[in-house]
């Protein structure tokens, strides 16, 4: 297997390997750059950004649950201006495609964010219509098929150069929304965002997250995410980016067999900042061990159906 064998395409976007960081688990690259060479990643998916800076939610924001965690960070972010002025130039020091994850409280905010980031030259824009942790916008688009389709189409019209990825919530039928994303002009869909979840301390009777409900991630969600990637990939012709509990190469292969063209490593980065590189290596080892020449040959190759 050559390095070329790991290349994948997301529409017009070519990636040197199929492993991305999941938005919100890698910041803007500054911290992970202390651990490894960011150019080793297939793409760097940035922490979600909004037009104005957002403060985020009060603590506690996270709690561990069996084989996973619940978070409610609340999209704390630096806002578009600081992103363009400081964060994007920083990550440009590495030869890695940048995927900007955007979040607005209404359609106009999404459109402005997408237009400015497209202008700034990011390789892809990921439309976050699936965050469970903010009050307005976001997931409300991800759960209503009409406003969802209108939003994707409106953003598509503004985005001239970047690839457009739509990130889906597991809290809606993913086949229906994936199909609508494709029909509205998306180049790819990514899923799953976290699953709305609740954990309670039985001694204090308080929720373990200050905001009560947060989003579940980690190995606990993986079989659900694999099922949803399978359903979404069967519903669309555009590529699917699979994520949800990936912590090793075997997990990534499973997503690809279910239909994912690329994968993202998320909260496993919290456990181990080197996790994305280990996943890349282990995918390579799997291919080598089985004489697989091109990683795209694994996509959708689940047997026996």
């Amino acid at each position, binding site marked *: 297997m050559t390095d070329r064998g790991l290349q994948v395409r997301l529409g017009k976007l070519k990636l040197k390997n199929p492993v991305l960081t999941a938005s919100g688990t890698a910041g803007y690259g500054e911290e992970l750059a202390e651990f490894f060479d960011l150019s080793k990643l297939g793409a760097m998916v940035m922490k979600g950004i909004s037009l104005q800076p957002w403060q985020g939610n009060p603590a*506690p924001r996270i709690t561990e649950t069996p084989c996973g965690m619940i978070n409610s960070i609340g999209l704390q972010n630096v806002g578009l201006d600081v992103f363009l002025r400081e964060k994007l130039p920083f990550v440009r020091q590495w030869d890695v495609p940048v995927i900007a994850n955007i979040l607005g409280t209404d359609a106009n905010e999404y459109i402005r964010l997408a237009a400015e980031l497209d202008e700034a030259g990011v390789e892809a824009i990921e439309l976050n219509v699936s965050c469970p942790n903010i009050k307005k916008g976001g997931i409300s688009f991800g759960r209503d098929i009409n406003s969802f389709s209108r939003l994707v189409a409106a953003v598509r019209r503004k985005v001239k150069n970047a690839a457009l990825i739509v990130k889906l919530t597991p809290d809606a039928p993913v086949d229906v929304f994936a199909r609508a994303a494709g029909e509205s002009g998306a180049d790819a869909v990514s899923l799953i965002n976290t699953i709305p979840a609740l954990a309670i301390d039985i001694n204090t009777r308080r929720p373990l997250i200050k905001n009560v409900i947060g989003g579940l991630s980690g190995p606990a969600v993986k079989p659900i995410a694999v099922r949803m990637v399978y359903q979404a990939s069967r519903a669309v012709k555009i590529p699917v980016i699979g994520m949800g509990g990936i912590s090793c190469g075997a997990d990534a292969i499973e997503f690809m067999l279910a239909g994912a063209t690329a994968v993202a490593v998320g909260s496993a980065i919290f456990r181990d900042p080197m996790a994305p590189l280990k996943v890349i290596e282990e995918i390579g080892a799997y291919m080598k061990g089985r004489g697989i020449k091109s990683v795209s040959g694994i996509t959708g190759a689940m047997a026996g159906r």
Partner: protein
Amino acid sequence: MFGLNSRKDPFLKRPFCYFRKKRNTIDILYRVVGKVTTLMTGLRAGDTAEVMGPLGNCYPVEGVEGRKPIVLAGGVGIASVYPLLGALVGKAHLFYGGRTARDLLLTGELESLSSGLTLATEDGSAGFRGTAVDAVRAHLKGRDKRDFILYACGPNGMLKAASALGVDGYIASEEKMACGIGVCLGCAVRTPAGYKRACKDGPVFPIGEVLFD
């Protein structure tokens, strides 16, 4: 960050401070509170674990400048101030609080590391009856607070009370952490300039910078 060799359950690493450092070993002092610390009690010599560190900042000792250092520790918070007592070369007065006498560890050793040791227990079973913050307040009575610098580590309630003493100094914040390296934004500490990260911007913050509920 300390992780057991279980990549799925428990899932995340846990934050601890270095308690004692020797040539080739690090001691971690912990209280058994949940899944990870319970499993840690089953570790035996020769077992392996994943450790990533050191991470975050330390108590600054440069700013002491003729002021008398007061070190305040609540419960297992003694672990983070233990090396500080050494850095302050025995000049600090240590106030060490717990619920009962049984919660107070290594008192003989701590006495030799400090210029004075005041124990405080809520039930009065050892030393001052009340919280360690109450004991500091009693100690400061009638004295000029500007002559002191305070370092505190313990539960959030204690840090809040310590911040209200009117003495300059530093507190080590305690929040749940997922990553320990600043990417998850889980360990949010509220400050006048917005949320900061206990893991990367702290855990030590100047008194007054952390806003409590």
